[in-house]
């Protein structure tokens, strides 16, 4: 399964402003995306049926973002491109919580391919389910 992420100039401009970048590469007539904008593929374009994170089965009241990594196999994707995105849970593991209980981790990889099928970027997210709800830790 896969879905498409069209990259448009307005969203690049809006996103660059939100991450306080004034770099001309994001503001030109032919801008590239800020690196972390790849994460918005999931937030803006992923069909619910393909969403990997719900498949982890974590309690959404205890979910945290642990790590995020981006690899680009060339220049950053550019306005006008449409990337094809595939998403997969590649690993799950557990660790003891600091105050007892069990923390659960899920590793999700998104791959981004251009119109010719070439892999242009990868995004790896580590999602954490804390051992207890925040209220009980306070």
């Amino acid at each position: 399964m896969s879905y498409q992420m069209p990259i448009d100039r307005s969203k690049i401009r809006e996103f660059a402003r939100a991450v306080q970048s004034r770099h001309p590469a994001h503001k030109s007539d032919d801008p590239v995306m800020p690196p972390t904008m790849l994460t918005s593929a999931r937030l803006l374009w992923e069909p619910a049926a393909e969403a990997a994170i719900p498949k982890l089965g974590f309690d959404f009241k205890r979910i945290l973002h642990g790590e995020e990594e981006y690899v680009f196999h060339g220049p950053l994707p550019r306005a006008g491109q449409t990337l094809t995105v595939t998403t997969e849970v590649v690993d799950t593991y557990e660790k003891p919580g600091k105050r007892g209980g069990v923390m659960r981790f899920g590793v999700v990889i998104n791959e981004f391919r251009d119109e010719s099928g070439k892999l242009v970027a990868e995004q790896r997210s580590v999602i954490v389910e804390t051992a207890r709800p925040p209220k009980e830790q306070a």
Partner: protein
Amino acid sequence: MSTATLEKTWSLGDEAPVKVFGPISRTDIVRYQGASGDFHPLHHDEPFAKKVGFPSIFSVGMLQAGLLSTFATDWLGVENIRKFNVRFEEVVWPGDELTCTGKVTAVENGVIKVELTMTRQTGGVALSGSAESLTA
């Protein structure tokens, strides 16, 4: 428009010019939520955040990641960046001032490796990360 660029050389231990973001406002957080498409209420809905046990709303981790990425690409160049990663450490609250630092950890085979840190005004680390960029 093209401008002549000074040939930049990179050496182990080179440090980036320090950059401070903030104080982070609720507007900064909401602007990021709108731009990114992440509308989790913990980051803008004060009654909701309090109901689930937090003293107030708090920032989106990915906003900090985006700010650190801005810092990294201003230093290393947008076209040359090939890898960027962050580990989310401490939560960032409205009013926080975030200081970004970076240091070259390796220069090999045309690739610069750097470590990156974003520190809150308390001294606590909000993000630790790294990046890789081409030298030219």
